[in-house]
């Protein structure tokens, strides 16, 4: 099924690949995809060391998905804003590079950005929150929201908690993406079923904001599944 009202803005990251695979598996095809390609030599946040371009293009072409390439990794650039403004879709699934914050004017162009945050909202806002929730409650979380100008504070659509994976060494590029993809699919299925976006009653204005996790705490979160003798 093609979601006529829904587009996608996607960077060439492991998360985008995971989202697309799940969308295809669930027969939920975005009407149009704007693909942000990293043309620089350095790996950007969210990119694994293994280049994904070939796999990504193969998937898009095999599924006959409509897409356009932006040779620009900055979603806030004029070039990308123009591309989005020229589209007819009212909602764009957001899967940009890690650590990017959408700033005005992009939030004021009349399009909503559907984002799945890697953390259970409003308890875990900010960056790398799934490592914090592993330490605090031995769980991963994901929450879908429409982006607003306040960090991770848009109205919540769907939020879920997930059991911690056995192998925690692949949180960044596999598990975090997987749980986000599950919530994304649930959000879109709910939208297809009801014909509108249904919000969770939880107020998302409060909660704790976390900052990028220190490598020592990240190691503790990963090593935590080892039961001491």
């Amino acid at each position: 099924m093609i979601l006529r009202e829904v587009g996608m803005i996607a960077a060439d990251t492991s998360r985008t690949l995971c989202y697309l695979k799940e969308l295809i598996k669930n027969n939920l095809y975005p009407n149009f995809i704007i693909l942000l390609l990293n043309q620089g030599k350095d790996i950007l946040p969210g990119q694994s060391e293994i280049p994904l371009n070939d796999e990504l293009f193969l998937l898009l072409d095999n599924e006959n998905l409509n897409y356009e390439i932006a040779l620009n990794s900055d979603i806030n650039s004029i070039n990308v804003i123009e591309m989005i403004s020229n589209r007819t879709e009212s909602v764009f699934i957001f899967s940009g590079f890690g650590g990017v914050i959408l700033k005005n004017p992009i939030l004021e162009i009349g399009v909503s950005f559907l984002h799945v945050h890697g953390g259970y909202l409003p308890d875990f806002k900010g960056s790398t929150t799934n490592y914090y929730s592993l330490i605090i409650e031995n769980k991963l979380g994901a929450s879908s929201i429409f982006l607003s100008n306040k960090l991770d504070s848009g109205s919540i659509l769907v939020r879920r908690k997930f059991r911690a994976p056995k192998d925690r060494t692949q949180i960044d590029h596999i598990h975090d993406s997987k749980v986000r993809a599950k919530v994304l699919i649930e959000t879109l299925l709910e939208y297809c079923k009801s014909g509108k976006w249904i919000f969770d009653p939880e107020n998302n204005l409060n909660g704790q904001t976390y900052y990028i996790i220190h490598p020592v705490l990240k190691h503790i979160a990963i090593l935590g599944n080892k039961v001491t003798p």
Partner: protein
Amino acid sequence: MEYKYTNLNRIESPNNYMYANFSGEKFIEAFQKNRLSSIVRFKNLSHKSKSDPKDIFFCYQFFLVIKNFLGQNLNEFEDIFFLKITNLKITEKSSIDSSKYKPEPIESFKVKDVFFTENLLSAMIFCQFNGSNRGLVKYFLELLIRSFEVQKKVYEKYSNGVIKGNGASNIVYIYWLFSLSLSIFYIQNKDIKYLNTLLKISDLLCSLDDDLIDNKLHINGLILVVFFESNAIKLLLNNYQESNFDFA
């Protein structure tokens, strides 16, 4: 394995800590080794320590707080080491009298006004030790954390909601006061968000060459913060692994 986060002066070359690779238990060992060697290095600087009655008061109070927090978890070696640290200079009982130190009341700091970070942190720490104004302490600590995490520095002065600081950003004494406030808050609230920023501030302090620390702060206070941080990590790791069962 090398702990690379203190290799460069982290005031001049801040680290963004993005997507750190997982290196297993060896990384935690490297971290602990780094902190131990920093403590040994700082101990050799103790004859060049700056101290005033406020710092001695803070160090002694902090010593009592972390002794209570770490308490029975200190093994014999650590206990002796701990006592040695605290006996270095915090022996003048008369200096430990809080009446000799009168900070500005925390209520006098207004976010819209320009204020000096050293004065604010001193007022916050004083409140943290006597358990007063918890809400205000948390409010200001959150603002300073946000500012540090975004700008990677702590500035001499702040105004207009604290995010953009101004003045010098290389005042080692302010970083130490910030680390002290974060340590006490973590002890009192067990919230790892504060331990997270403490780890970054400790990286910064441990990354500084001797000449940048000499006479800039009370060395025993610096040793206590690094010692506490290193032990808080040991405790967290032990507690976390013991209580964590994988049901997946």
